[in-house]
């Protein structure tokens, strides 16, 4: 079978998610990937794929990739790239594209260029026997030229260390990130997940057409929107009645004084034309079993509450608190107690061991305090294998990690589960106190600097006076 070499060109963000994403998509679409170069942190993968159609399908779902390029030349220096291309042009590489309208895109990785320099670079390919006209808006064919200057922005070499040239085969699924932008989304909450990360989760969760997907901490439903975009039929549950009914305090600053109207997860699904994939949301406490005993989901996605911007709670009472029941309302407002992060995670894993299909994936985020983190704290369950553990840095001190699990066996009585992430109350405490300390020292430093400046000025003035 004839195979082709492709360069998958990535956006340089969420690097630790990249390989997991590509492998998961390839597995869902059953596309065999042969690595020409072992995958690295560099912003590209060099792969061999069975067909151009396979490349298009693969890139259409990826949100870490920018575009897929049919590689024509891959050389360490610019002159060698041109030499190689010249030779290939003589051998008729350009023949099928000769008469088509075209454009050339230039990317410099870890360096910048002015418009003039960019034009110069494009002009340097003028030896290529193009006969078609340049069309920047709607070209028949797009070419990509890439100069790579390394990964360290502090040490940028004078010349690129690697150069690529090729024909763009397809764009990636990144336009979905803009399509699902929270800025224009009808219903959002305080903790709505960023669209790119939601889409990444749906990809890592191997969501495919006709799957039944559950989010047990659904909130405003960001994860469900992404899962629905990739063909999942979605169900969500949440303990927050007002959230699911779109009656919480408005999230957007500009419209703080106006109550939410017609906002709901379903409305979001309508907005993104995937309401066909929306099944239901249910007000329920995920800590208590309420699913039929043998229900199986194909994928379980969750962003559990950490106690920073939303309370971690479940139904229960510490003391004999009175049960709150508003007169004349059919809605119950049961009292709730603190529900520790490790408890949430263990419950979620036990639940998934029963209600996730075999080889299905369970994904959830956990907050970590970066200094204290080590891999031993991560949740484990004998039914699950850890596939990925990707860090998203939030502040200097804090991060959250996306844990990706695959169910490897059916549950037994002897199953074990553990999770020892420093508990959410300490996380919360640290999250706030550490920031305070930091702010305090910053304030002191500033004050000191101002004082020094004054002394310095005073001295300067003295000198002047003398």
């Amino acid at each position, binding site marked *: 079978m004839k195979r082709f070499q492709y360069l998958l060109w990535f956006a340089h963000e969420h690097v630790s998610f990249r390989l997991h994403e590509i492998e998961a998509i390839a597995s869902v679409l059953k596309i065999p990937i042969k690595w020409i170069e072992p995958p690295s942190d560099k912003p590209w993968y060099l792969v061999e794929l069975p067909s151009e159609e396979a490349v298009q399908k693969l890139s259409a779902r990826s949100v870490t990739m920018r575009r897929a390029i049919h590689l024509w030349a891959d050389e360490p220096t610019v002159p060698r790239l041109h030499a190689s291309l010249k030779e290939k042009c003589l051998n008729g590489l350009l023949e099928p594209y000769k008469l088509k309208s075209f454009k050339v895109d230039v990317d410099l990785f870890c360096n910048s260029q002015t418009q003039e320099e960019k034009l110069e670079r494009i002009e340097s390919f003028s030896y290529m026997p193009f006969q078609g006209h340049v069309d920047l808006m709607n070209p028949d064919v797009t070419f990509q030229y890439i100069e790579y200057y390394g990964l360290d922005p502090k040490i940028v070499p004078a010349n690129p260390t690697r150069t690529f040239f090729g024909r763009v085969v397809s764009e990636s699924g990144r336009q979905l990130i803009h399509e699902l932008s929270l800025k224009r989304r009808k219903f959002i909450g305080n903790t709505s997940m960023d669209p790119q990360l939601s889409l990444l989760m749906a990809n890592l969760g191997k969501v495919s*057409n*006709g*799957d*039944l997907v559950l989010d047990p901490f659904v909130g405003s439903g960001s994860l469900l929107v992404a899962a629905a975009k990739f063909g999942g*039929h979605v*169900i969500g549950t949440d*303990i927050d*009645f007002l959230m*699911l*009914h779109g009656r919480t305090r408005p999230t957007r600053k500009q419209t703080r004084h106006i109550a939410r109207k017609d906002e*709901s997860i*379903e409305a979001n699904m309508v907005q993104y034309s995937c*309401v*066909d994939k929306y*099944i*239901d*949301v*249910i*007000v*329920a*406490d995920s800590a*208590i*079993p*309420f*699913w*039929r*005993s043998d*229900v*199986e989901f*194909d994928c379980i996605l969750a962003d559990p509450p950490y106690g920073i911007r939303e309370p971690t709670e479940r*139904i*229960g*009472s510490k003391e004999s*608190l009175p*049960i709150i029941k508003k007169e004349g309302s*059919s*809605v*119950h407002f*049961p*009292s709730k107690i603190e529900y520790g992060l490790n408890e949430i995670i263990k419950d979620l894993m036990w639940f998934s061991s029963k209600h996730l299909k075999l080889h299905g994936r369970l994904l959830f985020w956990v907050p970590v305090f970066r200094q204290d983190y080590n891999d031993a704290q991560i949740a484990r369950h004998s039914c699950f294998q850890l596939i990925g553990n990707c860090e998203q840095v939030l502040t200097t001190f804090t991060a959250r990690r996306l844990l990706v699990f695959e169910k490897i066996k059916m549950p037994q009585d002897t199953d074990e589960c553990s999770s020892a992430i420093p508990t959410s109350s300490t996380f919360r405490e640290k999250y706030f106190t550490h920031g305070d300390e930091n702010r305090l020292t910053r304030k002191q430093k500033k004050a000191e600097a101002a004082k020094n400046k004054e002394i310095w000025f005073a001295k300067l003035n003295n000198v002047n006076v003398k």
Partner: protein
Amino acid sequence: MKLLTHNLLSSKSLKGVKVGYPLRIVAKDVKINESKFNKEFVKKIIPKLDWQVFINAAVQIGHNNDLSDELIDDYENNDEFLKKVHHLLVEIEIINGELICPETDRVFPISDGIPNLLLNVNEVP
């Protein structure tokens, strides 16, 4: 709430309840939403259903049609059948109504299409 969801829910978490399935439905407000037929989904979801409960639920809310109590054998290739299932499963929506525990008669309200399964502290074992 769609009939698919009804098929998956139980009230087993209530104190003293053993099975809590199936929940009885009282439908006060029913809406029909047309939605795109996804053959793949319907094929995959049928084995996950309690078929008998599904048919009974359809009858309970007055959408009795000609699907039989027994699931037919080669449904995977029967588009007409799959479309009927699709209609009952996801196109019929209970906007307002109640789900009722078969053992304790505890009522779980459905409002704006969203069922509320929250329990009070004294109802949890």
